């Protein structure tokens, strides 16, 4: 019997499986009026520090939880737990990003019904997490002044998909010789619609504008869920 080569049209997105799971996550979050934030950056840009400062500002107002994604160790989850906030660590081993299924599994360890804000700290990496939707409502990218002004140009896909870009470590602007305005302009070029905040999670400068914005987003989200019931 002679094999007959045959071309079959497929037309399927390679990330389809992840997107299906992300969709299920997103529906669950919307149903509960839960705001979910996917926090991404290069390693060391200050995600965990920023998270700590954000938690301190919002802790009295909302019921919070955190999912920490890291290649190894649960050090970041420990930092969050030290603030009295529920934190679940996902260690990905060699996988350079979180995916929707890892988040879905982690949800088992959360009282999803009793939360207002869930923050997911993704694996430190400006490339891979850009492709994997987790079902989040907000994609937040942290970019530190210490990384220089060119990061948005070098990683345009990640910045383009951000809803919010937090320019962190502005206290280091002078020491690192970086013009914060130039960095912000570079962010805007690849992500014209993102909200941009300039802040320092160490000194607290600029933090209030960000946490007020986030607070409003959490409130609107909860309100939208009660209205649609």
């Amino acid at each position, binding site marked *: 019997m002679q094999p007959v080569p045959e071309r*079959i*049209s497929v*037309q399927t997105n*390679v990330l389809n499986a992840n997107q299906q799971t992300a969709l299920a996550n997103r529906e669950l979050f919307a149903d509960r009026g839960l705001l979910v934030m996917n926090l991404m950056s290069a390693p060391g840009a200050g995600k965990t520090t920023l998270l700590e400062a954000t938690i301190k500002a919002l802790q009295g107002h909302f019921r919070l939880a955190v999912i920490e994604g890291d290649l190894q160790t649960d050090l970041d989850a420990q930092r969050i737990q030290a603030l009295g906030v529920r934190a679940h660590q996902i260690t990905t081993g060699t996988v350079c990003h979180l995916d929707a299924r890892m988040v879905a599994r982690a949800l088992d360890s959360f009282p999803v019904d009793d939360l207002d804000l869930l923050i997911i700290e993704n694996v430190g990496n400006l490339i891979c997490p850009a492709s994997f939707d987790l079902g989040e409502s907000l994609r937040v990218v942290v970019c530190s002044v210490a990384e220089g002004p060119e990061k948005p140009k070098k990683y345009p896909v990640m910045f383009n998909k951000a809803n919010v870009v937090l320019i962190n470590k502005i206290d280091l602007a002078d020491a690192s010789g970086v013009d914060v305005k130039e960095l912000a302009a570079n962010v805007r070029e690849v992500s014209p619609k993102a909200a941009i905040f300039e802040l320092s999670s160490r000194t607290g400068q600029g933090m209030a504008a960000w946490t007020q914005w986030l607070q409003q987003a959490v409130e609107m989200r909860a309100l939208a869920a009660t209205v649609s019931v």
Partner: protein
Amino acid sequence: MHEISIAESIVQIAEAKAREQYARSIQVIGLRLGTFTTIVPDALQFAFEIARQGTLARDARLDIEIVPMVVRCVVCEASTQPVRGVCLICEHCGFPLEIVSGEELQIDYIEVDSEKEESPCSQCQNESQSRPMY
């Protein structure tokens, strides 16, 4: 190296489609890959060599069609292909640009060896009734 996860997904999708068609093996997987993704074609080819092992695609070739990035201004309709560096603000009117293409990551087609016969004979028909369900 997210190309590993991507390559695994490509093989899974291609295999599922091939099984649907009772194919014996996959010869070619045609992929459309936009330039405004984070996927590096060479890294993907490398990852694919690993991901295809032990599957229906074990001898398959990955044909990557590169789709260039095209952006368009919703206000002045100017359409451009960013070459060096990406700027999503219209140089003519300052409004944000829309991405028309360049974000593709899609399996277009597969080429398979099927068991279908030009002229059916009794022997083959028997065989096709007891197709292996892999």
